């Protein structure tokens, strides 16, 4: 499956929800879509293109905006497809994929607590890796790491 096949199959369904389809190394292509049309795209990718297996959900903080990406695998095409959507850094929200792919559940929980992207209509959006009540999003670029000694010195000065 090539990027052209993807855009031919998805274009009519999504219309302006589909931003672009470009070549991406190691996969069938990279589909950029509008975050508002996420659920439609997921349904189309799963049902029409038979990418039944969602492998990975992740987020990237590009400082001015954030990106959510999905990787799905098709057993018929024996290929991955890479889906990505940009969400604004001020209101990082996107529809949850767990209604379409149940395997998205934990990946979205992790992305929520690490990159701070809220997945709407997620069945169980709570902390997965960090303890309950942890308020930071460690994988944001604004979150800096420190040597422990450095932190101790800082704590003493405070």
């Amino acid at each position, binding site marked *: 499956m090539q990027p052209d096949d993807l855009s031919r199959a998805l274009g009519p369904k999504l219309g302006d929800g589909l931003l672009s389809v470009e070549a*991406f190394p190691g996969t069938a292509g990279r589909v950029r879509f509008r975050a508002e049309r996420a659920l439609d795209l997921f349904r189309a990718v799963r049902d029409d293109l038979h990418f*039944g297996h969602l*492998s990975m959900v*992740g987020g990237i903080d590009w400082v001015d905006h954030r990106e959510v990406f999905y990787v799905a695998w098709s057993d018929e095409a024996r290929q991955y497809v890479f889906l990505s959507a940009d969400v604004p850094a001020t209101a990082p929200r996107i529809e949850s994929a767990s209604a379409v792919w*149940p*395997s998205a559940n934990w990946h979205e929980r992790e992305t929520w607590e690490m990159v701070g992207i809220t997945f709407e209509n997620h069945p169980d959006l709570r902390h*997965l890796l960090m303890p309950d009540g942890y308020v930071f999003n*460690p994988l944001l670029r604004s979150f800096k790491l420190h040597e422990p000694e450095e932190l101790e010195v800082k704590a003493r000065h405070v």
Partner: protein
Amino acid sequence: MSEMWINMGPQHPMTHGLWNLRVKIDGEMILDVDPEMGYLHRGIEKISEDRHYNEVITLMDRCCYVAGFAWEHLYILSAEEALHLRPPERAEYLRVLCDEFQRIGSHLMWYAAFVQDLGLMSPFLYGMRDRDLVLDLFQSYTGARMTYEYMRVGGVRNDLPPGFSDQARKVLDWLDARFPEYDQLCLGSTIFRERCDNLGLLKASDCVAHGVTGPMLRSAGMKRDLRKDRPYAAYDRLDFEVAVADGADVTARYLVRMEEMRQSVRILRQVLDWLDHHPGPVLADRLPRWLGAPYAPIGNEGYLLKRNYPKGVGFSAVEEPHGEAQAYVVNDGGEHPYRVKFRSPVFANISAARQYLVGYHVADIPPIMGSVDVCVGEVDR
């Protein structure tokens, strides 16, 4: 007894790592489960953003500590793609050698832990004994038993020592002779079959829906192996079968893993033959200077040189002993990777715990979770 929640973990003999399985039970029956992860979350993805490309390899070994080579390979593949590099052919074969020996080592570790969960004590010792032979081989060319730091962006660190292939063939012969013994201890035992047949059933369609991969998926009859479907390194030039069983239960997972070890031995014999006859370089000679000369301390040169290197992204997927691992590396032209994201197979396999645990007995939790082969390091990262 009324219904109650019990915590199995973080310190519990069943967990084989640091996680907590909350189980709701009625008498001996499981009504609901809720895995609680994150007790070993070490922030590897975040630390990687502060490291040079070769320094991340150190973290990869510790990410999954029973399959360090597989994770090194995973990261290296995507980093090479992001940095537009190609390894020499001999390095690719060497990586396959590492991967397949690692698969045997990891499966032996799994065998030891899984069978001990069933109460069978001796095979734990047998599994560890034979795993040590594999680790001795690793030690002979990397210097470490578990944390190797052997692969490099653009190849591998060093070639094999003289006499390695004879030693490795001896180990393979020994292992070949041990597999029937393992089978006799497990499959030959009526109690083992009574306990493991029709246990922890997870059909192929549920596997796909919940993202379950690896031996668990293949035990449900689905022939999916990235080494065949999406060959990386030198796998397209090697001859092997994909191990499949169709029981979808714990016994089937056992059979799949045992068969995988046999196939790994088969692959390794081919790889050793190839390596004997094709000497050559093991590290790409046109490495950018900031990636370091072969024997220089890792990554120190990066500080000296202002980088001017094309941006790129790398995506790779590797058939790890536990299942399908993926890595996504974003290179923004800086000294460090901008973002590194890993997909752990065990992460997805555990997240489906409710599907294959509810409805069984409390005594069935250890064998079922044992058949999942949990490695908490890669789940929590």
